[in-house]
């Protein structure tokens, strides 16, 4: 039913897969949301969206962007139209994420122990052992439950046929989960009429689950483990998230100088003196953890921390050295890695990937530059990417030169026509491209937070959803089985 004032009247998603208007959803649930949005109307959507953004600013739910001169607190722009995942889709994604996490952990255990996968020739040894994120300190080091990646974020996109594919694994210190929960709270406050009666999976359980996992992985002999969250501090761009997680877990948020190591034991400085610490959920990268082992100039870390860890007196989550598993070049081998360890096909396929460090991959990439997306293997945040079909001749030339100068720093992938969802813009509701980052917590077992962070590229036609590059986010609804 469209009337002239229907906000969907001029909505045209073209050849892309639209998450909201291309299907009815479980028992018409998606349809119902669409109707309710129409009923609210464009003006009210705008008023309420503005109110929601004010809320975020006042609450200081921000990330920090550093320019040359100053630090600016920005909100992650919030788009008020939810992204909806059906119950069946979620079962599929959840199974795929769990499988992937199992494979990532098996892979890490193997490369730091027996290296069966290298001997079997499944993945080139040089790619693993020569990787900048490979940590010799981890060799033959026992890890409880074989869990290296306790917190994992897997970036998933959907192509024009609606197929979910993995674009990237984040096995180091993935961020964004706080927005999942905050977006839901914001949505409940701002759009109760849109949500009324919708049967959705709740997202409030994350902190409790995380705390339980952090307790599980504490050194075995400790009965009542003290858990802390280690943050680089208030100037870190993800500080809000660190606060959020510490609060949701009910554990202290500490900075490096709050901790100290004596006789291979970790303590925190409290008003009643030193108190032992047993599990550290660290949001500091490997390099900065311990100046006596890694970067000597790190002021963020704790001298002696790695020693205490190796002595078995403290657990770090995620483990050190997981970066080798989420490397973009290693990513290309993930389907084979899954098959090797689990004897299964990947439930969520990879995006086809060409490894420029290999001669065939490089040749193919150079020959098809203008139709491929070229990505540096070590970067995150959407930096350094060249999108062939949209690049100028000069940009393509620059990419070609960079590829030839250091082929192993690059991979290439075909341009994926990411799915879209209606998004509120100055010109009304318009299709904008999305991805999805589900979060998995693994202690003894793996649990996946229903939904995850939906990021949306707010610029027309843009495929880059990263917050540092003009991305926003949406509340992600997973419909419960009816």
């Amino acid at each position, binding site marked *: 039913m469209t009337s002239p004032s229907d906000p969907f009247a001029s909505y045209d998603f073209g050849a892309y897969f639209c998450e909201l208007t291309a299907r009815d959803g479980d028992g018409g649930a998606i349809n119902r949301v669409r109707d309710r949005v129409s009923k609210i109307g464009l003006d009210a959507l705008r008023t309420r969206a503005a109110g929601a953004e004010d809320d975020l600013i006042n609450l*200081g739910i921000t990330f920090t962007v550093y320019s040359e001169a100053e630090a600016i607190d920005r909100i992650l722009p919030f788009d008020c139209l939810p992204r909806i995942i059906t119950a069946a889709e979620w079962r599929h994604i959840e199974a795929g994420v769990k499988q992937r996490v199992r494979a990532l952990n098996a892979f890490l255990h193997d490369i730091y122990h027996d290296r069966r996968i290298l001997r079997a020739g499944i993945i080139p040894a040089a790619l693993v052992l020569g990787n900048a994120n490979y940590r010799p300190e981890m060799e033959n080091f026992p890890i409880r439950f074989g869990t290296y990646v306790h917190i994992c974020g897997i970036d998933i996109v959907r192509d024009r046929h609606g197929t979910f594919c993995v674009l990237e694994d984040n096995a180091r210190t993935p961020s964004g989960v706080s927005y999942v929960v905050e977006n839901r709270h914001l949505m409940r406050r701002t759009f109760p009429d849109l949500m009324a009666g919708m049967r959705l999976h709740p997202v409030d359980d994350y902190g409790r689950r995380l705390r339980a996992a952090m307790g599980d992985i504490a050194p075995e002999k400790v009965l009542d483990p003290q858990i802390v969250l280690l943050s680089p501090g*208030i100037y870190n761009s993800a*500080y809000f998230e660190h606060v959020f997680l*510490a609060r949701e877990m009910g554990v202290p948020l500490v900075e490096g*100088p709050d901790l100290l190591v004596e006789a291979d034991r970790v303590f*925190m*400085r409290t*008003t009643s003196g030193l108190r032992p610490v047993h599990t550290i959920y660290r949001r500091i990268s490997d390099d900065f953890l311990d100046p006596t082992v890694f970067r000597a100039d790190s002021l963020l870390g704790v001298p002696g921390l790695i020693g205490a860890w190796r002595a078995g007196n403290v657990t770090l989550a995620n483990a050190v050295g997981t970066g080798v598993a989420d490397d973009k070049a290693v990513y290309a081998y993930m389907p084979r890695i899954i098959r090797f360890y689990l004897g299964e096909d990947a439930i969520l396929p990879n995006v086809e990937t060409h490894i420029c460090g290999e001669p065939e991959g490089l040749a193919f990439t150079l020959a098809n530059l203008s139709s491929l997306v070229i990505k540096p293997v070590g970067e995150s945040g959407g930096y350094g990417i060249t999108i062939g079909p949209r690049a100028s001749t000069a940009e393509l030339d620059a990419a070609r030169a960079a590829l030839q100068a250091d082929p192993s720093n690059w991979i290439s992938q075909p341009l994926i026509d990411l799915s879209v969802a209606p998004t509120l813009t100055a010109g009304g509701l318009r299709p904008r491209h999305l991805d999805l980052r589900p979060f998995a917590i693994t202690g003894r077992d793996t649990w996946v937070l229903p939904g995850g962070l939906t990021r949306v590229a707010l610029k027309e036609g843009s495929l880059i959803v990263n917050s540092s590059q003009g991305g926003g986010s949406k509340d992600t609804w997973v419909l419960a089985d009816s």
Partner: protein
Amino acid sequence: MSGISKDTVLLARYAEGLFWMARYIERVENLARLIDVTQTFESPGREDEAWSALLRINADEERFLAAGGTLDPEGIKRFYLLDRSNHTSVPASIEAARTNARTLRPLISTEMWMQMNVFHRDVMAISADELTGDHLTRLCARLKEGMQAHTGITEGTFFRDQGWNFYMLGRLIERADQTTRLLDIKYHLLHLQGIEERRLAELTQWGGVLRAAAGYHAFRRVAPAGFEAADVVTFLLSDRSFPRSITLCVSQVEWHLMQLRSRYNLRGTVAALERIEEVRAALSSNSANQLIESGLHDFLDCLQRDLNLLAGEIGYAFFRDWRPEPPSQKQSLGAS
């Protein structure tokens, strides 16, 4: 895994952050009071003198002149209300309070953080326009209200574990310190000789001091028949019920230290408790008239120094970064 855990620990850094956040906020509220009273009760023709007193009691004269300020009302108002590079200014204090609040976000309530965040934005937007004419009083009222909103939200939402005790210690020590400064601002009035001059001063200037401390009405209740300067001094130093009197602040400091000791078993409170005894002894050893006679200004100076030492003992015993070494020789108060 069940329910409530038996003991809560407090990071030394959090105790420190709470203590300082409370101090900065108390400081802003008092500065707003001082500015307001200076504006309202400046004697016609002697405005420069009135505003200079503000610099004197905050011991900011040197820095003010070094920063190239001109000693007139305009320059001094800007110094305290607009100049972010002046660390004793309202915007610098609010910036510092918010930075502490940011550090404390895992601990303080969302409502406390939100109010601080919004208030910070308002303070950063104070314009030169608001320092002129009748705008200034309204600005001061807004500053006071913002800080009182903080205080109220804290009262109603902040979890009362040991963190709250450290927060209160910061507030009360700063408040006591500010009361000494408020008394000091009009100390030159104590030496007026002419009867008529004194009477006028007592009516207007001392009334102004009492109003700045929000104590005028309470004072009238305890001194309904009329008053002398010494009565005001006694009231601000020693009244047992007035929230800004040094005596009441110090007893509350003592109560919070005792709480830390008995409820949380924090042994480091001993030195600070001893300092309290000294402050209290000094307060009771001289009558206001004696103090005025022998030099109230010096006494207030000593009191400020002792409050500093008290804060230092707390820092040394419990904080992570601000831990002044305890002085080897304890200074005694009011013995000069």
